């Protein structure tokens, strides 16, 4: 609900690669968060819902399967660095895509309710953008 929400997916976030569509995302939280905080990545490309388990994510130069992030508590996604979602959809340089993303970040130091569950901070994006070449 603030100015950083609009920067989660930027104008130049899409890149077409031989393997699919790369979507560079930036955090809407003010501080670096550990990788398990990428708790919810609900992505829809051109109306097609993407199974998070089919995603790979590159952070800090390391490429992980989405499911691996939950165990990477010793690595952090820095405030000004992108995390790149590798999405298995067909694309080509110059092609337009509608990208809808609900990114839910688990905030590990804000515990809510009697069960002390980390706050889930959501950010929604709905943008139609053109993929650049790799």
């Amino acid at each position, binding site marked *: 609900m*603030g100015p*950083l929400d609009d920067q989660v997916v930027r104008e130049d976030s899409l890149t077409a690669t031989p393997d699919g569509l790369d979507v560079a995302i930036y955090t809407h939280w003010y501080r*670096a968060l550990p990788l398990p905080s990428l708790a919810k990545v609900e992505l829809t490309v051109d109306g097609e819902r993407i199974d998070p388990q089919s995603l790979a994510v590159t952070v800090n130069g390391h490429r992980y399967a989405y499911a691996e992030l939950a165990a990477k*508590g010793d690595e952090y996604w820095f405030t000004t*660095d992108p995390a790149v979602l590798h999405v298995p959809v067909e694309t080509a340089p110059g092609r337009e895509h509608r990208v809808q993303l609900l990114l839910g970040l688990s905030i590990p*130091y804000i515990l809510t309710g009697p069960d002390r569950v980390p706050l889930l901070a959501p950010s929604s994006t709905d943008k139609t953008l053109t993929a650049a070449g790799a």
Partner: protein
Amino acid sequence: MTDTAPGLPRLGTTLFSLTLEQRKPGRDLASLVGEIAARDLGPGLEMVAFQSLRGWPHPSEEQVREVRGVIESSGLTPSCLAINNDLGLYPGRLLSADESYEYVAVQVRGAAALGFPVTRVGVETSPATLERLLPLAEELGVKIGVEIHAPLTVDAPPVAALKEAFVRLDTPWLGFIPDMSASMRAVPEAVHDAHRAAGIAPELTALTERLWASPGLTADKFPELEARAAEAGATPPQIGNLKMLFTMHGRMDPDRWAEFFPHVVHVHGKFYGVFDGPDGASDPSIDWPAVARVLVEQGYTGFISSEYEAHAYSDRWNVFDQLRAQHDLLKRLLEAQPAVAR
């Protein structure tokens, strides 16, 4: 650096205020710190370690040298390093007491290496963990302060437990960091901007604000807010935003900050906007005359970090203008307080 008169609280800025600036092209730590110094918004400098320092909580020796160099060459004085106790680091479980201790201890050591005399943790850090950290704090000469941020108040059970521990341990190395979000008198205009942008009907924002301002404990008002907002057609994300208005803005009487003394190790000058009016500059949301009176009466001579947070809702105002306006207001109010005999 312009300082307040001797014997008064000192001013400063936290880089958290520059959250949006940090994302702009060409910005780095040196340029943000340099601009705080150039605009005379010190002398105190605070930063959030996980926000400003890539690689935290394990900075390299080279990075430590570099950060120290940036601070030293700016002429600013390190006041506080905000660190975090990420208890919910892994899904489905909280860190154990040992893991939590280690997670914070490595950051207190990092703060010492960087030259910060105070660290900030949150209320999720238990009195037992703090007591265990005490020998390390003492050895390193780094204080550990628990931030009292909305929705906490002096009456909250975890705050009472902390106070009991600080009184019992009778130590200058552990204490509180009051954050003015806990003692607000009005909802900031920036929140209205964000609600409009989120498509929330102005009547719903107004209703939430009326409930917020009504007597009684905020915690007891959530059911009525949820029911009335749902009835008015608000979506679940919109209801989440409305509830955030309750949790981010506390209504404690600012005079009650006195009850946290003598255990105050640092102060967060949280604010959302200082605006010119017919009677000069003032802050509609935070009663700075009352806060300044309490801090001077208590003989507080530590730092007040200006912490501009309207950026979480709106980019309508210039952060540097806002920091200047708050510094000028605070300096005037602090220096106008009658001297307190000590």
